[in-house]
Structures are given as structure tokens and as C-alpha cells.
């Protein structure tokens, strides 16, 4: 088949645009949580592969194919790829640019396609059999299943160690840097904050599941979602996801009555479930409300006594009974069926919420319905402050709230952060002194250049008593310092 010059020119222009979009999306997917970017990469490369075949660019087709293999590995690992892998994808994309351009008349006869494909194959081989080494960003759906994560308490405890590892890596050189990078990335995987976005789209997947369940149980259902999108950690997302799954299934199984019973009770034949999720101050609140028969608290109490969780004479309120319902193994069903009765669901809801510092509650009115509420704290994932370049430190340093840049500094203490952190003394850049205050203390910091206002993203969280955290500033890893916590800086 003869391909017209016009068609080739059209392909070339579109291909270059596609590659540019993929390059952008690749950076995005490695530095932020962005499922759209991940999908965009897949779509663009697959389309480019097909288009290149049509117009006879078999070399582009071949590299696309290898790139798809590489991207499959990256996706399967939740984009937890190391720097070499990142480099391989980056080079492959640029190589395709060269291939796409080559027929425009420029002299590039020396392209070594087999050699390049061999390089990609060796990267692929190396990474297909190695464990993860980095988590830059991982789509939430993948993270939940692919990462071994530490509990939040242990993560907080290990946070300062991760900060130390980052500093050592960031100031090291030569082969030592390679070694320390691995250690830092390992710790970052284990204790670093992984971001996710909770949204209607994220929770809507449960709609089909409860719809099918309702059908199996011969019930009719009207489900509504009102979800405010928010950035949370993957742990919070996982907790809310588990809560949605179990609470909605419970609502269908235990709450919503049969159509006949509902009509007899003067209700519509279809039961209503409304899921509301929104941010309230520094918490995210998920409420699942149904208009079913309500919780039979007398039955809950009787079952709790039967299971030995309550003494016969105990006087307890509804809140305590709700608490007992979340006890491991508690179920008002005496025999388990496919849907419930094992006493696992509410235990999982509460366990997930407690793991992230949240809680679960319920209110119920007999014959009117039940509302389950899961409240989880949402930690701030960004920090407003000023970024400085400290002499001798190769990463941005951020001073966050409450530290502010002083307009007319009058400071008696001048700090070289590199020295204060016990690193090599500055030996290079010309520094100027800029004043900062937290309201109580005033410090002069040696800075290479003017401090710039930034919004940093928290990467490794530490307790407020630690001297710093790891953050990213425009995707560059750096450090948030708390000068008042650095030994010696303020006379401590």
C-alpha cells in the first residue's frame, strides 16, 4: 500500500504531540497520584503503536511495543520504579521522537534500532524479576494491593530515621550515593505519605455491587452518592473504601426491607441509600443513610449477652450497643450466609477507621432507618512556607508555618543550616542572611538567593518534636526544617 506524503506528515505531527503528552503524563504519574495520567499514557502509546503500523513506521511500532511492556511492568508495580527505569522510559520516548522525525530529511542514518531494543529488553528483564524500590506515586487502586505498608504508629516512629536517610543520601556522592539512594527509597516506600483522591468515581464502584446484592435478595434499591472530592492518604482511602463496601452491603442485607414489607409500612417499594462524604474542618466524614427498618437494639443486646459480651443486668445505651456490633465475630445472625453472619464486616469498618485515627458511630430509629458515620482525621498534606537554598545542601529547604520571613530582620543568631545539621560546612556559594521568626525566636539563615514562597507537599511526616520532615517542592525532594528543634540552633 502506498502511503501519501500528506498522511505521513499528518502522522508525524500527531505522533510528536502524542509523545509530548506521554512525557508529561509520565512525569505526572511518577510525582503525583493521577490515574488519568496513567490511563492517558496507555491510550496514547497504544494508539501510536497502531497508527505507526498503518503508515509503515515499523521501527516506531517496535519501540512502542517494548515501551508498552515496560509500562505494564511499571503499572503492575504501582509505578514504584527506580531511577534507572525512569531513565529507560524517558530515553525510549525521545528515541521515538528521533524515529518519527527521521524521514523528514535530516541525516540520522546511524540509528541503532536493534541495539536500542536490546537495551530496553535488558531493562525489562532486570525489572521483571526485581522487587520494588521506589514509590514516587501509585494509583490508589494499585497501592492498596501492591504495597507492604507499616502501621501508622510505626511509620511516625520511623519518620525521623527516614529524614536522616534522605539527608545522608542527598548530600552523598559517588557509589555511596547509589547505595544510600536505595536505603532512602526503601524507607520512603515504607513510611512516606502516599496520596490518593477520594471522589464519587472512587466510591461509585460499590453501586453495582449492592445493586446485584439487592437483586439476589429480591429487594429494590435507589442509591444516591454525594461525595466531595478530597486528597487523602491511601490508608484513609482504603479505610473509607472498606467502610463503604460493608456498610452499604449491610444496609441492603439488614436494613432495607422487602418491597412488600416496605409498601405495607407505607414506604416506597424501593429502599433508599444515600452516601454522603465530605470534609468537615480537619476530618473527612462518610455517612451512609438508609430508610430501612432500623437497628433492632433489643436483639443486639440479647445477642451480646448470649455471646458473653454483656452481663444480663447491664444497662447500656445505643452507642454502646453500636460499639458491641463492631466487636469481632459479632452478628445477630446465628448462621452465616453468603452475605453476612460472620461478624466480620463492622469489625473491618471499625478496624480500618481506628487504624487511621478515626471512629465509627451509628444512629437508628426503628422503622425509619439507620445512619452509619465514619469520621477520619485528614492531615494537612501541604505546607505553606519559604524555600531557601542553604549553603552546601543540594536540596531545597523549606521553613513552614509558623516561621515567617522578616521584612526588617534584626537578628543576633545566624545559622548555617548545613553546619547545624552536622553536614559538611559550606564551601561555596555566596550567601546572604535572611531573617525568619516564629513569633518567639528570630533567626538569621544563610541563604543562596532570595527565599521563595512555596507550597511544599509532605512526603515523610514526623512528630512535631523532630527537627524536620521530607517534602517535595515542585516535585523536587527537599526538607522542611523546624529550626527550633535543631540542637544548638536556639541554645537548646
Amino acid at each position, binding site marked *: 500500500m502506498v502511503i501519501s506524503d500528506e498522511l505521513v506528515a499528518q502522522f508525524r505531527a500527531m505522533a510528536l504531540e502524542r509523545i509530548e503528552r506521554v512525557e508529561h503524563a509520565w512525569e505526572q504519574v511518577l510525582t503525583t497520584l493521577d490515574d488519568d495520567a496513567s490511563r492517558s499514557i496507555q491510550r496514547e502509546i497504544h494508539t501510536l503503536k497502531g497508527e505507526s503500523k498503518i503508515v509503515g513506521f515499523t521501527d516506531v511500532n517496535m519501540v512502542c511495543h517494548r515501551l508498552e511492556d515496560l509500562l505494564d511492568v511499571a503499572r503492575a508495580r504501582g509505578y514504584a520504579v527506580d531511577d534507572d527505569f525512569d531513565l529507560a522510559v524517558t*530515553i525510549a520516548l525521545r528515541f521515538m521522537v528521533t524515529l518519527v522525525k527521521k524521514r523528514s530529511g535530516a541525516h540520522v542514518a546511524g540509528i541503532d534500532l536493534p541495539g536500542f531494543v536490546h537495551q530496553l529488553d535488558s531493562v525489562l528483564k532486570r525489572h521483571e524479576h526485581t522487587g520494588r524500590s521506589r514509590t514516587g506515586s501509585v494509583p490508589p487502586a494499585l497501592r492498596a494491593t501492591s504495597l507492604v505498608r507499616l502501621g501508622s504508629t510505626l511509620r511516625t516512629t520511623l519518620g525521623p530515621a527516614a529524614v536522616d536517610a534522605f539527608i545522608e543520601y542527598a548530600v552523598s556522592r559517588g557509589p555511596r550515593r547509589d547505595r544510600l539512594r536505595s536505603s532512602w527509597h526503601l524507607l520512603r516506600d515504607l513510611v512516606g505519605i502516599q496520596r490518593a483522591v477520594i471522589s464519587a468515581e472512587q466510591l461509585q464502584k460499590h453501586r453495582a455491587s449492592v445493586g446485584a446484592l439487592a437483586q439476589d435478595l429480591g429487594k429494590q434499591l435507589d442509591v444516591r452518592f454525594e461525595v466531595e472530592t478530597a486528597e487523602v492518604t491511601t490508608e484513609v482511602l482504603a479505610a473509607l473504601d472498606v467502610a463503604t463496601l460493608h456498610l452499604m452491603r449491610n444496609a441492603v442485607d439488614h436494613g432495607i426491607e422487602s418491597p412488600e414489607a416496605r409498601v405495607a409500612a407505607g414506604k416506597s417499594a424501593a429502599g433508599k441509600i444515600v452516601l454522603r462524604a465530605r470534609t468537615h474542618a480537619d476530618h473527612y466524614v462518610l455517612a451512609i443513610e438508609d430508610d430501612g427498618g432500623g437497628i433492632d437494639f433489643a436483639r443486639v443486646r440479647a445477642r451480646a449477652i448470649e455471646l458473653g459480651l454483656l452481663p444480663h443486668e447491664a444497662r447500656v445505651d445505643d452507642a454502646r450497643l453500636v460499639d458491641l456490633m463492631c466487636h469481632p465475630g459479632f452478628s445477630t445472625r446465628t448462621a452465616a450466609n453468603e452475605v453476612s453472619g460472620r461478624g466480620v464486616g463492622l469489625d473491618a469498618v471499625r478496624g480500618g477507621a481506628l487504624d487511621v485515627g478515626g471512629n465509627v458511630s451509628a444512629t437508628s430509629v426503628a422503622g425509619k432507618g439507620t445512619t452509619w458515620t465514619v469520621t477520619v482525621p485528614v492531615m494537612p498534606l501541604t505546607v505553606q512556607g519559604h524555600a531557601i537554598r542553604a549553603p552546601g545542601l543540594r536540596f531545597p529547604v523549606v521553613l513552614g508555618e509558623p516561621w515567617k520571613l522578616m521584612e526588617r530582620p534584626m537578628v543576633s543568631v545566624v545559622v548555617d543550616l548545613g553546619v547545624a545539621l552536622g553536614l559538611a560546612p559550606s564551601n*561555596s556559594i555566596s550567601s546572604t542572611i535572611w531573617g525568619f521568626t516564629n513569633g518567639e525566636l528570630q533567626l538569621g539563615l544563610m541563604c*543562596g538567593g532570595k527565599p521563595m514562597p512555596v507550597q511544599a507537599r509532605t512526603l515523610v511526616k514526623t512528630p512535631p518534636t523532630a527537627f524536620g520532615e521530607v517534602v517535595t517542592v515542585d516535585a523536587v525532594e527537599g526538607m522542611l526544617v523546624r529550626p527550633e528543634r535543631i540542637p544548638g540552633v536556639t541554645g537548646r
Partner: protein
Amino acid sequence: MAVLLRVPEVEDPDFTAEMSYADGAVLRLTGSADRASTRALADMVSALHDELCRRGTRVLVIDLYDVDYMAAPCFRQLLAWVDKVQELDREQQYKIRLRGNPSLAWQAHGLAALACFDTELISVEA
């Protein structure tokens, strides 16, 4: 004559560029090219390419032996540089000899792949 070209705007003592024309055109990069160095490296590549064209340079040696780390966005600047050379008319193109350190993982893989872009223009010396 040796001309010291500090990577502009970075003011980072650990990533430097030193250009020498004493014994052929040799660009010696040292240190660690983190993402923060990307813009500075791009600016330097652009300025240096123009300078090499102006001088009618035939061969450029890029000595990366002491670059212990290069982030992908920085490496992309090297790829863009190759692209610039390829865009030149044949008689204006200068050859690029990469002097590397194969014991560093990023160089072992990255430079070999870079050479595949144009074997007539680029060669790698271990």
C-alpha cells in the same frame, strides 16, 4: 585555554560544568544532576551548542566520569542536545564522544542507549 562555565542559576557546587578548548573541545561535568538542575543544564546546553557551532567544532568530548547521578529530566537535556546536532546540516554536525564510568548504574545503561540514537555521531568511551 580553559574556560570555567558554572551551570547558571543553580549555584550548586556539586554539579559543575567545565569547558575546555585546550586539547579539543571537552566538556567536563561533575557531581550530581538532580531534577533541580534541569533548567540550568538546558540553558547551558543551548548556549554551548551555539558556541560550538560558531567555532566550527568537529568533535566534542563530554566527560561524564564524575557525574555520579543524573535525574531523567536532566538526561533529557542531553537527548535534546543530540537532537539539535542531528538537525544541523551534515557538514555542520559535530561528533560527540561520551566519556563515562560504567561502574555507575545510570551511566552503564543510559550512555549505551544514548549512543543508539546515532552511531555515526555518538560514541561511548569507557
